[in-house]
């Protein structure tokens, strides 16, 4: 796995690899080394996943779905896979809202957008995740075990759970879910040892 030294668009795949108990090289590219590497990547972007030095995959969600299918974490039926896809696409929509605020150059506008993000947009998405959880009886997002859906929600909630610790108090089932995911032994070990980054 090649990405920058933050969670960003690679973390979902790092979590999948951790959950599956698979060894891999977690290469974190320094900003100053990126321009030289960029033209060598399939689409001029990170993350990329290289497999046994033979295949190079771009596109964070293609990588995540590839790993999920490879390790049996993508859902057992077409419907379950679709339910995982719904969750993944929804987390992408939330990520896009966060990125919009992150990239806003005007400081005053940024503060306004951040307020709206935390007060309206994040709770709207978290409600969707909680409703998905509640409509499934296993305590997992999809089916009866851990899937890409659980890890995608865990990952996208990380930043606002940490920066606004009161927010999750309105979502008790999501809080339980976070604890459930974080206590899976492989995931727990990974979370305890991974680099701590801002985003």
């Amino acid at each position: 796995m090649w990405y920058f030294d933050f969670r960003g668009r690679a973390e979902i795949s790092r979590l999948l690899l951790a959950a599956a108990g698979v060894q891999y090289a977690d290469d974190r590219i320094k900003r100053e080394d990126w321009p030289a590497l960029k033209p060598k990547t399939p689409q001029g972007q990170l993350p990329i996943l290289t497999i046994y030095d033979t295949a190079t995959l771009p596109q964070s969600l293609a990588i995540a779905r590839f790993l999920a299918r490879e390790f049996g974490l993508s859902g057992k039926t077409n419907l379950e896979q679709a339910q995982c896809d719904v969750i993944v696409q929804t987390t992408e929509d939330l990520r896009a809202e966060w990125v919009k605020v992150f990239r806003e150059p005007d400081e005053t506008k940024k503060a306004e957008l951040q307020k709206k993000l935390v007060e309206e947009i994040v709770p709207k998405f978290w409600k969707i995740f909680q409703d998905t959880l509640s409509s499934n009886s296993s305590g997992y997002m999809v089916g009866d075990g851990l899937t890409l859906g659980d890890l995608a929600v865990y990952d996208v909630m990380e930043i606002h759970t940490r920066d606004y610790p009161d927010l999750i108090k309105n979502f008790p089932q999501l809080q339980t879910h976070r604890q459930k995911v974080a206590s899976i032994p492989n995931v727990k070990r990974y979370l305890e040892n991974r680099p701590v980054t801002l985003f």
Partner: protein
Amino acid sequence: MPAYKLMYFEAKGRAEVIRLSFAVAGQSFEDKRYSIEEWYKVKQAIPQHQLPCLQVDGRFIPQSGAIMRYIAREFGFYGDNNNENTRVDVILGASDDFLKNVMSWYYEKDETKKEEIKKDLEETKLPQFFSLLESILKENDGGDGYFVGKKISLADIMIYDITDQTSSIAKLPAFPPKLAGLIDRVKNNSKIKEYLAKREKLSQ
């Protein structure tokens, strides 16, 4: 046989790739198109309160990316193994990235900025996207077949649709040779040809 109902607006937008997919699948479906007034009445009952949404066997599947993959898997055009599924996803991902540029144009209210975005699309973003698609296409059968495997897949359908829809808001550069061949191949797929003929008729 489950009953499929695709819900969207009276437009191509994010539903058209799904309509094309049903055509390729040879599967009939209810093509529900809401007016804005009708939409406001049903909105609260739809998960995520957005369209498109698929209703199948009484269940709702929102999110166009989830719906298109569901149909493609159901009817066997999402690739035949994980490597092929992933190749489809790489192409869908590249399309999603390109689409962000079109959406920037769509949402820009300032007319001057809108013109600049359109110019950038025509002079930079579209040529880059086509060049990328050409090189991805050449990885499979030298570019003389389809994007993935040996038959039409969701990747081919998406690329046809995104180029078709973008052509209505910006002037497309010439297709590189293999991509031109692929677009023709998709348009001449018997089921797509039949669907496009009907669509053409409806818009007149």
